[in-house]
């Protein structure tokens, strides 16, 4: 591991309920049971990094259901995602982005009521120990990020000394329609037609017990799946929609398990997964079926716009 000299730039005053360090995630380790992790909303992470000239996949804070407050330990420059985020410096609302924070001042961030997550980037990036090539935090197994956990009061954030990555990437606006686009999944054909139909027609709501592993959805129950318990365990990935025995869908997110034995009815396309990740509990969610060919065009555009999943770019 290369040692990067780091300097303390901020102290955490109010950590928020689930704030973690995330980048684009770790690739190549799902075969060892290690989830990808990384930002739930990769597009917004890229956007926040773009505001301060960092690479799109630089480690930043994922403020999940804020609010969060930090004190600057020196003059710093930050960027953030979310147009309607409520941002204050020493109690005064600000709309500047990037935003300079003088030494000794406090920055408070709160996601807008309609969104779940803000990404907060620091010019030059954050320094944490990389685990398996990524700075991302995986709290369940307690590794990555800051000591493998969510931020706590008093934590000190570090930025690299004398390293100013410059990246002139611009982040294209996210084009994700209101209904999240889904392709049929590997087990869709095993559902009775009326269940499939209800999946694409129903309006679900994000459940309270949603987290970085999966967003559970409440609403219309799908019945009649013939092969409960007979789906052989296979690899699953973020974006896949499993149906649990209660007949309700779970959208797998960045920290999801690497293999699963529940039927997968569909897969939410990556740009729409970013939009879905931003839905707070109680928000309505609905899906729209797209064909395989349509999905490829959408994926390609998204991949190019944020160099999503770029080989060798994370870590």
């Amino acid at each position, binding site marked *: 591991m290369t040692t990067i000299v780091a300097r303390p730039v901020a102290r955490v005053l109010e950590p928020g309920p689930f704030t973690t360090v995330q980048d684009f995630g770790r*690739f*190549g*380790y*799902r*075969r*060892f*049971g*290690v*989830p990808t992790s990384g930002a739930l909303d990769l597009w917004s992470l890229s956007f926040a990094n773009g505001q301060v000239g960092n690479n799109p996949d630089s480690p930043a804070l994922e403020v999940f259901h804020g609010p969060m407050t930090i004190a600057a330990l020196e003059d710093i420059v930050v960027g953030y995602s979310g147009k309607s985020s409520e941002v204050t410096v020493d109690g005064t609302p600000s709309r500047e982005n990037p935003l300079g924070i003088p030494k000794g001042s406090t920055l408070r961030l709160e996601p807008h009521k309609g969104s779940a997550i803000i990404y907060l980037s620091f010019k030059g990036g954050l320094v944490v120990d990389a*685990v*398996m090539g990524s700075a991302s935090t995986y709290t*369940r*197994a307690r*590794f990555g990020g800051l000591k493998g956990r969510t931020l706590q009061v008093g934590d000190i954030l570090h930025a690299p000394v004398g390293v100013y990555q410059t990246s002139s990437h611009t982040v294209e606006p996210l084009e994700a329609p209101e209904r999240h686009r889904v*392709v*049929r*999944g*590997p087990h869709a054909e095993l559902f009775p037609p009326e269940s499939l139909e209800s999946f694409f027609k129903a309006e679900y709501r994000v459940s309270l017990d949603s987290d970085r592993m999966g967003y559970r959805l409440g609403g219309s129950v799908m019945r009649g799946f013939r092969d409960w318990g007979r789906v*052989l*365990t*296979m*690899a699953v*990935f973020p*974006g*896949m929609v499993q149906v649990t025995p209660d007949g309700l869908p779970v959208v797998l997110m960045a920290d999801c*398990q*690497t*293999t699963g034995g529940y039927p997968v009815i569909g*897969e939410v*396309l*990556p740009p729409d997964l970013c939009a879905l990740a931003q839905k707070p509990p109680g928000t309505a969610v609905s899906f729209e079926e797209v064909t*395989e060919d349509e*999905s*490829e065009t959408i*994926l*390609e555009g998204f*991949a*190019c716009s944020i*160099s999503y*999943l*770029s*080989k060798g770019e994370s870590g």
Partner: protein
Amino acid sequence: MRVRRFANVVYVEFCDTIDPECNSSVLSLDRALAARSPDWLLEAVPSYGCLALVVDPARSTKEAITNELKEVCASVQAAVPYQGGRLHQLPVRYGGEFGPDLGFVARSAGVAEDEVVKIHTSREYHCYMLGFTPGFVYLGGVDDKIAVPRLETPRLKVAAGSVGLAGNQTGFYGMESPGGWRVIGRLQVATFDVGKEPPSSILPGDRVRFLSVK
């Protein structure tokens, strides 16, 4: 063999059973693809009867991916079948605080606890895959006599190294995690370390034999 694509994931499906020969086909393809390392392949994840491939849509067309897969599959089928990986002999402390469900397994099998240990240590198991949580190793081919259903309510915390049973599968937890397998013992060696490359010392295709130690 069936190849199906779902957005950025391609599944190459060989069978939907737990069968060492079929799993060997999966692992052969995995190995052949790793050797070629096509630029569209971001990650490959083997499971019992299926190899999942995460593809980079910006790097290759659907046709290019399909054609390359066909080529590799043909070369794999022509080549020598996957030869089993390394054999690991792993020391286990059975029962007591290390194996809280050993008594349950013994009762349901109608034998003494020592007999369960004898049966469990009498075979060499094929490692089909890792998955679920970091470093969890799936082994198959458990004697029907000691096959037991999973716990009805999973434990919130299972210690790292715990050796469990679920149906005809046995396996162990690489890290502390929640889990529903019946725990009969605990490994006396660590098999998973996030600081190592690869992080798991047991890999798909390897064979495992458990040794009872006091």
